């Protein structure tokens, strides 16, 4: 089955894109000096040989900012994606397998979070957090409000597995719920959960960019969202400083796009019904 994955052009392309950005974020400091503590010129200097992407409104090197922002955004995306996947999977698998009242309660909980718009909850929460909206906190907030979708998706899977023979057999043999869920249900869902994780990561990155754009991003770090926010508020548009917002836009898009492609490719391999 995995061999099919390596033959998929989309999968390889998506992976190449994603790991390309990941490598840029991780390895760039080894090849260049990232300096955002010191002004290197005037406000919004266009790209030059010394500063490939020019400067921002405070005369800081845009390329350094971008690499640091990329690291933060990937961190937020992966952390938020993990939280959303883990929480969603636990609730979804358990509810789907157990059924009955517990399932009903969990479903109400899930749908409740689904009905209240995530963005509004995030804004409300981050508005009432007094001090230190740190990057990690933002990631956890995103993760803990976007898990609903994973829960719904996983629950459907889990409840369909419930009726399978091997699960029924395990039940008859008197194994506990935890045992069955861990050994007889989760393994069958791994590839599915991984796809969920990929999509959650993409939406984590996009969500962080959105709330930072609204001025509710982290106070302590540079992320792609805060770079965009600063550019807009400091009239990069009016002054024609495209280098202050186009590269960050492209990076966010490329990450999300690559993750989407990976997901699509994986689906068409793992879910034969989607193969034409």
């Amino acid at each position, binding site marked *: 089955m995995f061999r099919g994955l390596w033959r998929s052009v989309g999968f390889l392309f998506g992976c190449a894109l994603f790991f390309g950005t990941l490598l840029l974020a991780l390895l760039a400091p080894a090849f260049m000096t990232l300096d955002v503590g010191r002004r290197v010129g005037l406000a919004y200097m266009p790209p030059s040989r010394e500063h490939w992407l020019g400067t921002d409104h405070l005369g800081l090197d845009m390329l350094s900012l971008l690499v640091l922002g990329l690291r933060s955004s990937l961190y937020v995306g992966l952390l938020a994606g993990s939280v959303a996947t883990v929480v969603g999977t636990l609730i979804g698998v358990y509810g789907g397998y157990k059924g009955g009242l517990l399932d009903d309660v969990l479903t109400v909980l899930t749908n*409740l979070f*689904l009905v209240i*718009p995530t963005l*509004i909850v995030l804004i409300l929460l981050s508005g009432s957090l*007094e001090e230190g909206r740190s990057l990690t906190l933002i990631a956890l907030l995103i993760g803990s409000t976007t898990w609903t979708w994973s829960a719904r*998706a996983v629950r459907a899977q889990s*409840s369909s597995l419930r009726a399978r023979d091997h699960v029924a057999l395990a039940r008859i043999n008197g194994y506990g719920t935890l045992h069955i869920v861990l050994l007889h249900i989760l393994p069958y869902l791994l590839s599915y959960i991984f796809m969920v994780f990929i999509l959650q990561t993409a939406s984590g990155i996009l969500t962080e960019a959105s709330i930072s754009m*609204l001025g509710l991003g982290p106070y302590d770090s540079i992320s792609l969202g805060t770079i965009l926010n600063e550019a807009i508020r400091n009239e990069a*548009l009016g002054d024609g400083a495209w280098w202050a917002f186009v590269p960050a836009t492209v990076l966010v898009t490329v990450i999300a*796009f690559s993750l989407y492609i990976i997901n699509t490719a994986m689906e068409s391999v793992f879910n034969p019904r989607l193969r034409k």
Partner: protein
Amino acid sequence: MLQNHPTLKHVFGRAGWYFITFLVAITINFFLPRLGDSSPVDLIMARAGSNLDAATAREQEETYLLEFGLVQTDPSGKILRDSAGKPLRTSLLAQFGRYLELSLRGDLGTSILQYPRRVGDIISAALPWTLALQLPTIVLGWIVGNLLGALAAYRGGVIDRVLYPIALLTSAVPAFCVGILLVYVFGIQLEWLPAVGGYDEGMLPEASWSFIASASYYYVLPFTSIFVIVVGHQAIGMRSMCIYELGTDYVKYAKLLGMNERRIVLYMFRNAMLPQLTGLALALGAMVGGALVAEMIFSYPGLGMAILTAIQGNDYPLITGCTLLITATVLVANFAVDILIGLLDPRIRSGRPSAGPTGGDTSQPGAATGADAPLMAVR
């Protein structure tokens, strides 16, 4: 009695769940913004009180606290105080009770930041703009997206290979970035289209052709910025669903029977549409909150900015009023779709009613979307 009317029973059952969800949601909406310990009165005092002497400032602050029901009073309306003479704050629970009581009477209270405007007035002034921008955009985007998605799935080939990556790409661009790029290129660099506002500065809203023309002109960029993304999302979902339906047994069987191609397509389309309808409901419900980005980037009138400024200024009555509206629209939209799907798909009606809103969802094994439904479509 209801046993004999499965449809009615279904409707009532759903309505009950929705009501419970609604209650929990407004409770959360009420308490969430009040978690922090900052007081909105501080903000008013900052603007009004900086030149007052200490005693008057305290007196004035207490007047506001009283006005917004943030301090406890005895029956005669006098402020209750602790031993140090400081006014006793009303507990959150008591505030919540008062809020519920007033809301039931249709009184959403007075805005703190925009004092003395009523929350109801603020919302009703902003809502038409939000609806005018979002409703046609989402519905139109949904229709076009679904048509394109279906087209890509059925025709396949070059159309699919071109359309699909484009749709993936547009849905990967953050919503506000589309707006920013449009403003930059068409509004500022080329100056083809206005980048700021809802209509010509020289006009007042009126029922005249010139006003409608002006509003349409100013509508183009905000519309496009949302439209592009909705189309992308919907096309991806629809394409996956259609491919999924193409592979189902009933389609294979129908083909085997030699059924008319048009009819098969019609059936498939209907089945593929069901989860898409849920998506539409969610999108429509979220539109009030989703308007924020477009309003910020284009200075377009509407509710989104009202919410954001209210949150930034801890304008509790306005926040709660807006979130009440948002929750209500989301729930009503979902309820409507729920019922609609119930009518279209008898399997749901007769099956075990699932808990909570947004029925016809993946929680129904064997329903419109099975366990192996594509992820991109159920998202």
